[in-house]
């Protein structure tokens, strides 16, 4: 079911083995994200999807295998160096600093940006993407709804003007209306030239939006293919999409 993907690879994960402490969770995962793509990463709960993103972003120790970002081997690079290289990560679950304001979140997002003009450019971009956020600059994250927090986190991640966006279950705990808003925003971001790797429980939903998809199971690759193909694949449907 493998298909030709010709675009340049932005992220390549090759034979990734990683986990927590001595516990190995990923037993050799391979995937890639190419220019202009939304790539969906699905699989049952506990399959290791979040672990893949965390290992790619430098939050976990990689036992073996490689993470190559924009042609550079970044395996074992600390997270703050990976951010500087342009990989933005929006983790799963609690995604904000509860007591900090919108403005402070954007400041934190721009932590690695030294140049004032670059930061100004980022802020203008955020203003285009999330105009309503800029009107709430003084609002604390804890006073915002789950959907707003997710958007704030997305805006925070966009402050580095990333070359790749990693999203871990951005729809978690959101109302259907917010889920749609978030996904539409991701498509808009992709169309502006930033590829995205999205982990989702809502498998059918993410595959709708994905150019390419991977299915993980118990720390191993199980299926891969174009988003549409995976959606119609009888095995994938039976096992992961509920029939």
């Amino acid at each position, binding site marked *: 079911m493998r298909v030709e993907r010709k675009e340049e690879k932005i992220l390549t994960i090759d034979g990734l083995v990683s986990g927590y402490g001595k516990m190995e969770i990923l037993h050799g995962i391979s995937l890639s994200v190419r220019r202009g793509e939304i790539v969906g990463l699905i699989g049952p709960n506990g399959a290791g999807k979040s672990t893949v993103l965390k290992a790619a972003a430098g*939050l976990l120790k990689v036992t073996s295998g490689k993470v190559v970002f924009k042609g550079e081997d970044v395996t074992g690079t600390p997270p703050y160096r990976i951010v500087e290289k342009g990989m933005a990560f929006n983790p799963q679950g609690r995604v904000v600093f509860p*007591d*900090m304001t919108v403005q402070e979140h954007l400041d934190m997002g721009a932590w690695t940006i030294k140049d004032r003009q670059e930061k100004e450019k980022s802020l203008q971009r955020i203003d285009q993407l999330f105009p309503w956020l800029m009107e709430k600059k003084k609002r604390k994250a804890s006073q915002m709804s789950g959907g707003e927090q997710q958007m704030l986190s997305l805006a925070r991640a966009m402050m580095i003007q990333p070359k790749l966006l990693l999203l871990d279950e951005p729809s978690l705990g959101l109302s259907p209306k917010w889920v749609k808003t978030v996904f539409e925003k991701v498509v808009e971001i992709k169309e502006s030239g930033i590829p995205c790797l999205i982990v989702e429980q809502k498998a059918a939903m993410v595959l709708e939006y994905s150019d390419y998809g991977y299915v993980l199971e118990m720390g191993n690759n199980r299926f891969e293919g174009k988003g549409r193909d995976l959606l119609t694949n009888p095995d994938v449907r039976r096992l992961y999409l509920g029939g």
Partner: protein
Amino acid sequence: MTNFIEILIRGLMLGSVYALVGMGLTLVWGVVGIVNIAHGEFVMLGAYLAFWAFSLIHFNPLLSVALAIPIFFFAGMTIHKRITERLTKAPELSALILTFGMSILIWNLAQFFWTNTYRSVPYLTGSFPFFGLVFAKSKTVSFFLALGITAALFAFLKYSRLGKGIRATSQNSEVALVCGINTMRMRAVTFGMGIALAGAAGTIVSLQWVIFPQMGASYVSKAFAIVVLGGLGNIQGALAGGLIIGVLESLTTQYWSAKMAQIIPSMTILLILLLKPTGLFKK
């Protein structure tokens, strides 16, 4: 009535210094996740710093705060990197045991080198009248020093880049990491700040009370009461908690006895944990 107001103000002055110690403890506990039982020993070391600087080279005790802050900050960062950093991933009990050991070691060394002799810094003695009230000069100066340091701490945490990074690390360290913040460094800086606050408080108390190797114990117990009152990791809460403990101590000393005043910290901890374990203040 004037007597009551005087006692109240004395309590606030006392409390402002306790608050420094408490804010240091709560900051480290909240951001670094380490309960530093040895916190009071750094108050003692700060007091000795002021004492020795004064008695050996006649260094102005009021300026020893400015000396203590950088020294204790870097000492704290070093201790964290060398010793306590490994504790952030270990169970909380290991931190308790290790810092307890550190506490005993430090005051034993102090006892060994400096003996049990009670020391004091006879600098700003005497008192002055103020609208019919009378205040000790040393305590008044201490109060303003403590307030100045507190204001600087609040401004640092609220407005500076490093301060924001520290708050981000304490509120959500995973997101802080993916912002590119070196959270390990933030924790080391915070640990240094906590120790610097204890040391600064030590130089300030040297102006008013006797200095001896075991003096840290009474400060750490007050600091624990303050942290419990203010809520774990809550800096503003610790300021309020410090002032409350100071006022309670001052009132009890005056209207009951100095002995009773000594059990205020433990009574506070007990009552708050029973009645409102999250502390008196919302974060």
